[in-house]
C-alpha cells in the first residue's frame, strides 16, 4: 500500500499531478489526529487507572492544576492555523483558481444524466458544436447537439467512457441534464458535483497511464480499471452510474481520437423534439433489474468497449 509520510491511508493510486499534494495533506491531518488521540488516550487511560475508587478513595476538590491544557489547546490552534494557511487554502486556490487556458488544455464537456456520463470532445477544430437542451433525444442525441452547426460536425460524443492523454492538462466543463450527480475520478483525486443549470470547470493533469486491465485485483473483477464514480445520490440506479476512464500515452490518445472521430461525425440527424414534456412528479426512470446486482456487465451502457 502506498504511504504518505509513512502513513498507509488505503487510498487508491494517486495518478494526477496534484494527487500527492492532497494525499500528503491528508496524511498530515491524520498524523495530527493520531497524535492527539493517542496522547489524549494515554492520559485518559492513566487517569482511569490512577484515580479509580479503589486506589483513590477520596477525590480532590481542586483537581488538576497547571496550564498544560491551555498549552495543549494553543498547540491545536497553532497546528490548525498552519494546516489552513500553509496547505489547505493555497492548495484549494490552485485547484479552483488557476484554470489552465483553453489553448493548452485538452477540453472535454461532461454532461451527467440519470444514469450515465456523456462526454463531448470538440474534435479536430477544437470547437464544441452548439448544443441545446431542446434538441435532446434519448439515445440518439443525448447532448442536444445542433446538427446545423458546422463546428459540431467533427465533434465526438461518448457515453460512460472518457479518454484522456497523459501529462496534458485536462479541462472538463461539467454539467448535468437532470439532477445533481457527483463526478468522481478517485485515482485523479477529482470530485465535483454536476449541477443542472450550471457548468463548472474542473482541471487536472494525469501523470500515469491506466494500467492494463487485470493488472490489479480490483480491475480483474469489474473488468475496467479506473472508473468514473457517481458520488451524489441521484436516484434508483445511482449505484450503477459507473463509467470508465482511460489515460493513454500521447500516441494512444491520438489513435483513439482518429479511430473514433469519423464514426461520431456521422451523428444521426435527430427527429424534431417530441414536445412531450413529462410532469415533474411523474418522471420516468429507466427500469433496471436490481436482482442481478452482481455488478453491472462491463460496458453494458458503453458506446464502445474499452480499447486496450
Amino acid at each position, binding site marked *: 500500500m502506498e504511504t504518505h509520510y509513512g502513513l498507509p491511508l488505503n487510498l487508491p493510486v494517486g495518478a494526477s499531478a496534484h494527487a500527492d499534494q492532497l494525499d500528503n495533506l491528508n496524511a498530515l*491531518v491524520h498524523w495530527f489526529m493520531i497524535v492527539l488521540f493517542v496522547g489524549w488516550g494515554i492520559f485518559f487511560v492513566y487517569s482511569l487507572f490512577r*484515580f479509580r475508587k479503589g486506589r483513590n478513595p477520596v477525590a480532590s*476538590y481542586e*483537581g488538576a492544576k497547571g496550564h498544560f491544557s491551555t498549552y495543549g489547546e494553543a498547540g491545536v490552534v497553532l497546528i490548525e492555523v498552519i494546516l489552513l494557511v500553509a496547505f489547505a487554502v493555497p492548495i484549494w486556490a490552485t485547484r479552483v483558481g488557476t484554470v489552465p487556458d483553453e489553448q493548452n488544455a485538452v477540453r472535454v464537456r461532461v454532461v451527467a444524466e440519470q444514469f450515465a456520463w456523456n462526454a463531448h470532445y470538440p474534435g479536430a477544430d477544437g470547437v464544441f458544436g452548439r448544443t441545446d437542451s431542446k434538441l435532446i433525444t434519448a439515445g440518439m442525441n443525448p447532448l442536444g447537439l445542433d446538427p446545423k452547426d458546422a463546428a459540431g460536425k467533427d465533434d465526438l460524443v461518448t457515453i460512460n467512457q472518457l479518454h484522456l492523454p497523459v501529462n496534458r492538462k485536462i479541462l472538463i466543463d461539467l454539467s448535468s*441534464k437532470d439532477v445533481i450527480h457527483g463526478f468522481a475520478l478517485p485515482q485523479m483525486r477529482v470530485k465535483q458535483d454536476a449541477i443542472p443549470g450550471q457548468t463548472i470547470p474542473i482541471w487536472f493533469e494525469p501523470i500515469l497511464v491506466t494500467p492494463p486491465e487485470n493488472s490489479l485485483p480490483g480491475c480483474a473483477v469489474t473488468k475496467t480499471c479506473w472508473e468514473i*464514480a457517481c458520488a451524489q445520490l441521484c436516484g434508483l440506479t445511482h449505484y450503477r452510474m459507473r463509467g470508465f476512464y482511460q489515460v493513454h500515452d500521447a500516441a494512444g490518445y491520438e489513435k483513439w481520437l482518429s479511430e473514433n472521430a469519423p464514426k461520431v461525425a456521422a451523428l444521426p440527424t435527430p427527429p424534431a423534439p417530441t414536445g412531450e414534456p413529462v410532469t415533474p412528479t411523474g418522471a420516468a426512470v429507466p427500469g433496471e433489474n436490481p436482482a442481478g446486482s452482481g455488478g453491472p456487465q462491463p460496458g453494458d451502457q458503453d458506446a464502445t468497449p474499452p480499447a486496450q
Partner: protein
Amino acid sequence: MALVDDHAAHTHGHAGAHHEPGFWGKYVFSQDHKVIGIQYGFTSLVFLLFGFTLMMLMRWQLAFPGKPIPIVGALFGQLNAPGGIMLPEFYNQLGAMHGTIMVFLGIVPLAVGAFGNYLVPLQIGAPDMAFPKLNMASYWLYFVGGVIMFASFFVEGGAAQSGWTSYPPLSDIAPDGQTYWLFGMLFLIFSSLLGSTNFLVTIIQLRAPGLTWMRLPFFVWAQFVTAFLLLLAFPALQAAAVLQGMDRIAGTSFFLPSGLVVSGQQLAVSGGGSPLLWQHLFWFLAHPEVYVLILPAFGIIAEVLANNTRKPLWGYKSLVYSVVFLGFMSFIVWAHHMFMTGMGTVMSTFFQITTMIISIPSVIVLTAFIISLWGGSIRFNVPMLFALAFLPMFAIGGLTGLPLGLAPTDIHLHDTYYVIGHFHYVVAPGTIFAMFAGIYYWFPKLTGKTMSELLGKIHFWFSFLFINGIFMPMLWQGLAGVSRRLYDGGESYSHAQGVLGLNKMMSYSAWGLALAQLPFIINLFWSMAKGRKVGSNPWDATTLEWAATTSPPLAHGNFTEVPTVVRGPYDYSLPGAPRDFTPQHEG
C-alpha cells in the same frame, strides 16, 4: 399566538389545581413536564429502534447484495422486495428514512424533548415549564409528524428516497412520499419551535432564587444553547420545505433551473430556480442541528462525570463559554457540506476557517471533561461506563471531521463512507451512548428504582465492541474512495474491491449490536417492575433534581417548597463538608 392561549389554562388553573385530571388528562394530554418528558422518551426510543431496524435491513443488502432477505423478506411486498430481494428504490427509502428518523424523530426528541423536559425544570427548581399547554402541543405535533413520516412508507411510490438531505431536483421529481416527508418535517419544525421557545423562557424566567447563571448545572446550559439553535436555525428549513412543497404541489421552480431534461424529455416547468438554494437553506439548519445532537449529550456526560468522579467538573466556566461559542459559530460553518458544489476560493476559505475555529470549543470541552477525571475517586457504574466511552468515541468522530473540514482533503473524502463513519462516531457511540448514560443515571429519578448493574454491564461491553465493529471499517472504506448511498455497497467499483469484505463484518456487527440491546430493553422493563428500590438521592448527587424532591418527584409542582440555591452545581468532596457531596441548596 398560541402563547396567549396558554394563559387561559392558567386562570382555570387556580380552580383546576384541586380537581384531579382524569386518565386522559394525566397520561395522554398531560401538561405536566414530567409526563410529557416520559411520553417523549418512550416515543423517541421506539423511533430509534425503528430507525435501527431499517438500517439492519439495509445492512443485509450491503453485506449480501441481491440475496433475498431471510425470514422477514416476504413482509415487504412485491413493490419493495420481490422474492425478498430488496429493490434499489426500497434501499433508498430506507436510507433516507433512517437518517430522518434517527435525527429528527429519535435523537433530538430524546435528548431535548425527553431529557430536557424532564430534567430542566427539576434542575432549576421550577414547578413546571413556563407554558405547560405549549409543552403538550409540542409533544403532539411531534407525534403527528412522526405518524406522517411513518405513514409515508405506505403511499404509492413509497417513502422519501432522496436522502435525508432531500436535494432537489431529485427530490422535486420524486414520488409522493417526498411530499409526506415535507409535511412531516413541517410538523416537527413547529413542534421544535414551540419547544425551544418554552425551554428558553423556562430557563431564563423560572430559575429558583439564588440559581445564578454560573450556578446552573452544565446540562441546563447545554439545553439552553440547544434551544437557541433550534429556535433560530429551524426556520430556514421551514422556509425551504415550503418552497419545495410549492415546487411539488403548485408546480413552481424554486429549485429547478431551466432546461431540465429527465429521461430524455423536457421537464414542463418554468425553470429559473436554483438547486443550490435548497442546499444553503437545508444546511443552515442541518449544521446547527448536528450540534443539537451533541450538546445535550455533553450536558448528560458532564452530570454523570462529576457525580462519579466525586469532584467538581474541571473548568466549568470554560465549558460554559465553549458551548455558547460553539452555538454561535455553528451558524456560520454550514457550507463545509458544500465544498464540492463549485465553491470558489473566497467562500471556501471562509468556511474552512470557521470550520477549524468551531473545532476548538469542542477540543476545550473534551479537554475539560478528561481533566475532570484527574484527582477523582472514580466509580465505574453503568452510567459512568457509557459516559467514559463517550469521550474517546466522540474524539474519533470529532477528529475525523477535520480532514472533511479542509476542502482539499474533502475532495477525496466527500460523499464517501468516511463521512458516514465520521458522523456516526459522533452520533452513535457518541450521542447514543450519552443517552444510555442518562437513562441509567436518571432512571431512579423516574421510578424510585435502579436498573440492574449486571445487565447494564453486559449491554455496555457488547454495545461498545459491536458499534466500533460497524463504524471503524467505514473510515477505511471511505479512504479507499467508496461512495455512500450505494445499493450494492460498492460491489461494482474496482476501487472498492479491496474493502468489500468489510461489509459483511460491519453487518454482523450491526446485528450483534441489535442483540446487545436486548439486555437493555429487558433491564428497562424489568427494573420498572422489580428493580431495587432506592431513596430519593441514590447517587449522592448535588443538583436540585435530586436534592429537593422525592423520587419519583411529586405529581404536580415538583418541589414541596421552592429551594434556595446557595452554591455551584458540583460541590463534591468539598473540603470540610460532612459528606462527599454538598447539594446546591445546602448552606
